């Protein structure tokens, strides 16, 4: 399978199965585009393009494509037998700790029902948190690198327990020869100096929720009194990042059908001095969700964002956008690209009561509870549906050129929209494909900023 794409005047061909990438001229792009849509006969292609290019040039380009094909770099067959089992032994090595099913904000689009996950407001106890880490150590078997994300609701409203769990984790690391990478996802609405010191000492990655422009952020991210949170959050986020050095962080926003000009929100975040930025769409339900009819506008907006990103880099004010970061020189292995998040297999969420779920978005969903860390129960068979939840087993993925970039999409989005974790959410897939052309184009232009083919 191939994909012919472009960003601005940078044309490329992605050889999907081998992961090869070719910077091509418009002629080869046009040929590959015809091939992608099913036209394979050289004479037919020549005829179709004869009004635009001289036949000698078309013949030359077809010869070069044949050369690539000969070298296994064009329309390469799948490297793995699709029916082969992959990653089929569950090893939980990554936890999402729901340290608080409560929140000091009341965001309109919150999938967790303003932190409650459709249950009662509650905080995780130290006892549950420690039991969760014991569970992680036991389940992780031979894996050395483990991950624990403090999540919510808002984790910082239960800060004393966050500190106690982290300290316990450091003990466990020594005792069991593991490396635990703690991370936190916070709204940064209430942050003390002690929290800043602790976070920047202990958290390998920090994700702060900011939606971009003040009016966009404040329209959805309000406090309990209905007031916008922007001013406090920006000030706190700047304090956190200012003393973070070169440690990882992301300013992570959400865009909705109400701000399809979301590139302005990314820029607004960059204008506040933040360089690591991610923005995610609301896709699953309600009036804020992105619809299929929004896709042309979204495609244009990702391309506009790509141009803005290049302009800022040229001005010496660079920033990174999470979904534009692709790496064709190394990056994750094929095994990783088949099943990214590992929900129910490598990744699990723990509720304040100690209940175990395949991921944070499955919390509270009937039939997905895997056990309880306090009670010492764990039934990995609940995760069995996730065993085959990978690219090779999903028909929609097999025919998609973006499959090794999204790893088959989010199982929760699939389940929430179709009731079936094996059926990727179509609009999410379209958004993934929309931003991929820009991501690949930007990658090529970074490698060879002035090169012409």
């Amino acid at each position, binding site marked *: 399978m191939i994909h012919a794409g472009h960003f601005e005047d940078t044309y490329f061909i992605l050889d999907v199965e081998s992961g090869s990438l070719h910077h*091509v001229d418009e002629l080869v792009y046009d040929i590959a585009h015809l091939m992608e849509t099913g036209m394979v006969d050289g004479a037919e292609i020549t005829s179709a393009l004869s009004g635009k290019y001289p036949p000698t040039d078309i013949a030359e380009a077809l010869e070069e494509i044949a050369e*690539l094909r000969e070298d296994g770099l064009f329309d390469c067959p799948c490297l793995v037998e699709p029916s082969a089992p992959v*990653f089929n032994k569950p090893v939980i090595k990554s936890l999402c700790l729901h340290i608080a099913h409560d929140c000091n904000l009341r965001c309109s689009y919150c999938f967790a029902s303003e932190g409650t996950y459709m249950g009662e407001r509650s905080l995780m106890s130290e006892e549950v948190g420690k039991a969760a880490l014991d569970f992680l150590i036991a389940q992780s078997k031979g894996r050395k690198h483990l991950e624990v994300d403090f999540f919510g609701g808002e984790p910082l409203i239960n800060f004393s327990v966050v500190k106690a769990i982290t300290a316990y984790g450091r003990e466990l690391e020594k005792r069991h020869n593991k490396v635990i990478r703690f991370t936190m996802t916070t709204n940064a609405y209430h942050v003390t100096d002690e929290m800043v010191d602790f976070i920047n000492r202990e958290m390998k990655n920090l994700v702060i929720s900011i939606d971009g422009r003040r009016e966009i952020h404040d329209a959805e991210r309000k406090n309990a009194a209905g007031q916008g949170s922007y001013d406090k959050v920006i000030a706190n986020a700047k304090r956190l990042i200012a003393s973070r050095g070169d440690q990882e962080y992301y300013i992570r926003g959400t865009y909705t059908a109400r701000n399809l000009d979301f590139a302005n929100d990314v820029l607004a975040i960059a204008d506040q001095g933040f360089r690591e930025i991610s923005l995610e769409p609301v896709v699953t339900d309600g009036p804020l969700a992105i619809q299929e009819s929004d896709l042309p506008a979204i495609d244009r907006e990702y391309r506009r964002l790509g141009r803005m990103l290049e302009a800022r880099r040229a001005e010496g004010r660079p920033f990174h956008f999470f979904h534009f970061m692709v790496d064709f020189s190394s990056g994750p292995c094929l095994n990783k690209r088949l099943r990214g998040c590992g929900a129910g297999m490598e990744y699990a969420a723990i509720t304040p009561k100690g209940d175990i779920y395949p991921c944070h978005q499955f919390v509270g969903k009937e039939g997905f509870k895997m056990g309880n860390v306090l009670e010492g129960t764990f039934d990995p068979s609940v995760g069995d549906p996730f065993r085959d939840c990978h690219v090779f087993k999903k028909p929609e993925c097999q025919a998609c050129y973006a499959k090794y970039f999204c790893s088959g999409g989010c199982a929760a989005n699939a389940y929430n929209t179709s009731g079936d974790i094996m059926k990727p959410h179509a609009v999410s897939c379209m958004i*993934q494909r929309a931003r991929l052309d820009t991501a690949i184009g930007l990658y090529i232009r970074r490698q060879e900023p002035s090169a012409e083919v």
Partner: protein
Amino acid sequence: MKHIKVVAKACLKNSMEKGGCGECQASCQSACKTSCTVANQKCEKDA
């Protein structure tokens, strides 16, 4: 070649040989928490 410049050769094929150790970060723990962009993740062996 006049019309084509190879930017990257078969990175997935190469990754088959060293991959699958499972030591890398779960993608949902990175920045998104709602989608599965994986192509920007680091291989633990390259870290």
